[in-house]
């Protein structure tokens, strides 16, 4: 009974220690990860839903394909990978640790047989110090031991690089821990702030509000454009408020893409912007093309105003900077629809900075745009992630571990000296060809020592 139980735990242990499991999990993760790059994740666009059948939708949903990277089965794969690499490390680390901390100091017959690089030469015991110096210069400080009147010198280089693999394994776990800390104690949210106003609540993707213990005031949002009309800079001027008062050092801070603002562990990232539609007033000016006499008037979006003489005007669209649509112009512009009495409507664009365009238009009236006291809002991503430094620590460990494991080699050499003869032997755990060249060089030097 007990033996049967033992074999079960043993075989389970062997299963989790196996490299085959690691390879299967890595390939399994690679293949399943493709699903989430093909099927939309999170908020599914309605256009996509129309392209798949009801049955397919239900199947995908039951398999959590619409949020697959957080699904139970994907998490299971990640947890299995973690268990696998912990088990592998537990199984192999003690052996490697022993090799690093308790190296074989004596070149006995069985060790010598296991090494392919050996060289025999004549040497007397009086040359011990010379050989010591030689090993020190070539590999590292040698350790001397004596057995049955025979001297053994052992020197090694980079023994710690054998731990590189385990450093990488550890780093994966550290990164996972960092990610878990972030998901339990942090959040991702967003908030829109209209120019001139402040907020103290942000919203997560599920629209649940999170109250901040401070306020964020947006003084101004602006967009700069290149001559080509492509956006150059999105900028919010933000001030942090504590109890309604600006905080010193956090007043009028420009926040642009790639340059966020962090306060009390919460970071605000420039993400989007828009026109705050409610209540904006647009200023226009109308004059007779012949005879002059201009009149100012205001209009709201979607509103139709009647001008003197019976003409009516409607504001269709407006922009703070027309350059993004018409690179040859700049500044605010408005698209209006003008209906002269008894005529069909005509729509055209008027530019605040380019009144001459309107001067050249044909028609009885000259409509000029004088801009708007329209307000913009800035859209900010808000993130709190106390785990992020753990993740960076893990990433650093991973890079160091990979460097140790890939580019450093544990080199071990022995010299046995006794009975008028000496034997040099050596081995390296990586890049045997390079070590072979090194060994040959050492042999050449020994000949002329």
């Amino acid at each position, binding site marked *: 009974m007990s033996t049967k139980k033992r074999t079960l735990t043993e075989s389970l242990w062997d299963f989790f220690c196996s*490299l*085959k499991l*690691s*390879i299967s999990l*890595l*390939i399994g*993760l*690679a293949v399943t*990860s*493709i699903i*989430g*790059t*093909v099927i939309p*994740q999170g908020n599914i666009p309605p256009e996509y839903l129309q392209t798949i059948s009801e049955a397919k939708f239900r199947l995908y949903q039951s398999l959590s394909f619409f949020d697959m*990277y957080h699904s139970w089965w994907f998490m299971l794969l990640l947890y299995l990978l973690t268990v696998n690499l912990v088990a592998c490390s537990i199984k192999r680390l003690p052996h490697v640790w022993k090799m690093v901390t308790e190296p074989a100091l004596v070149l006995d017959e069985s060790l010598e047989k296991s090494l392919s690089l050996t060289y025999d030469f004549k040497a007397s015991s009086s040359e011990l110090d010379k050989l010591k110096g030689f090993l020190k210069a070539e590999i590292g400080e040698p350790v001397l031991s004596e057995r049955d009147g025979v001297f053994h010198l052992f020197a090694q280089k980079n023994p710690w690089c054998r731990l590189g693999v385990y450093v990488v394994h550890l780093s994966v776990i550290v990164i996972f821990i960092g*990610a878990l800390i972030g998901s339990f104690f942090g959040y*991702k949210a967003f908030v829109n702030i209209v120019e001139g106003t402040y907020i103290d609540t942000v919203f997560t993707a599920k629209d649940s509000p999170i109250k901040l213990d401070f306020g964020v005031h947006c003084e101004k949002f602006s967009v700069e454009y*290149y001559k*080509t009309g*492509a*956006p*150059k*800079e*999105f900028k919010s001027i933000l001030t942090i408020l504590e109890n309604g008062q600006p905080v010193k050092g956090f007043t009028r801070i420009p926040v*642009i*893409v*790639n340059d*966020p603002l962090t306060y009390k562990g919460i*970071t605000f*990232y*420039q*993400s989007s912007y828009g026109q705050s539609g409610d209540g904006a007033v647009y200023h226009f000016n109308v004059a007779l093309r012949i005879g002059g006499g201009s009149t100012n008037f205001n209009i709201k979006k979607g509103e139709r105003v009647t001008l003197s003489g019976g003409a009516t005007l409607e504001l269709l669209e407006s922009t703070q900077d027309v350059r993004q649509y018409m690179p040859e112009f700049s500044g605010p512009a408005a698209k209006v629809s003008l209906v002269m009495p008894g005529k069909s409507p005509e729509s055209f664009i008027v530019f605040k900075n380019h009144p001459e365009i309107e001067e050249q238009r044909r028609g009885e009236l000259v409509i000029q745009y004088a801009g708007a006291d329209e307000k913009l809002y800035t859209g900010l*991503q*808000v*993130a709190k*992630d106390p785990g*992020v430094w753990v*993740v*960076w620590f893990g*990433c650093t460990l*991973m*890079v160091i571990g*990979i*460097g140790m494991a*890939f*580019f450093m080699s544990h080199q071990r050499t022995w010299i046995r000296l006794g009975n008028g003869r000496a034997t040099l032997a050596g081995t390296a755990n990586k890049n045997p060809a390079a070590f072979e060249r090194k060994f040959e060089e050492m042999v050449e030097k020994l000949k002329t020592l």
Partner: protein
Amino acid sequence: MSSSLLFNVTTFLFLISTILFFAYMASKNSSLGLGASLAAFIGWGVETLAIILRWKESYDMGHGHAPLSNLYESVVFFAWTIILIYGIIELKYKHRIIGAFVLPFALLGMAWAQLGLNSGIEPLVPALQSNWLLYHVITCFLGYAAFAVACAISIMYLIKARSEGENSTSQAGGMISMFPAIRVLDDLNYKSIMIGFPLLTLGIVTGAAWANYAWGTYWSWDPKETWSLIVWFVYAAFLHARITRGWVGKRAAWLSIIGFAATIFCYIGVNLFLSGLHSYGGGR
């Protein structure tokens, strides 16, 4: 002299190099091989100048950014990194013939860039205005290039292994006899991936750091991120497979080719077929 002229010269030199490599393979004339290598390296030198000149041109136009900002610039840079990695491997291990399989990748890239892609110098959109752009793109593409070289070596491995399998009695004749021994090819495949994997890891880490700095999320399962992780998984599987018995040779070669196919999809396929945060990379 303009950078686009120099890029054309580069493309031409890579073409000459490819032709010379094929001639070298067919004739076994070592001076043709030397010419092929020289054409590739001179082409690389000209391309280096072209990239620097394009960088300067962007400053002259008032944009002032490293030429790594759109698909054209990245394809051109990819070709440059492929020749760089190939050059390192050739100088270190002295197996010139590998160039016959590597150069077509670089030539294909340059030809596609010069003939099919918009080569205009555009100003940087706000999302790309960061020093991380440089670190992220350079590490990623050096990694991709090492995988390209590994893939070329794996193709050679499979050709050589097949021809030796067919006539196991006689030595493989003709062109294939010029290939390094399959044991050497297997080892070079491994060595190339040993170069590529740390660079890809750095590329993913710098990308995550940048994403965190710009958007507040170091990982958002965006298709580009996910595909880079898929590539990382494939090569991680490759590296682990090396330790177990039975996964050297043909299987390793296939895994390397699959890894490079995933790399190319990550680089180009994601931009062409999937939407996401790296959409500017697909601009035509």
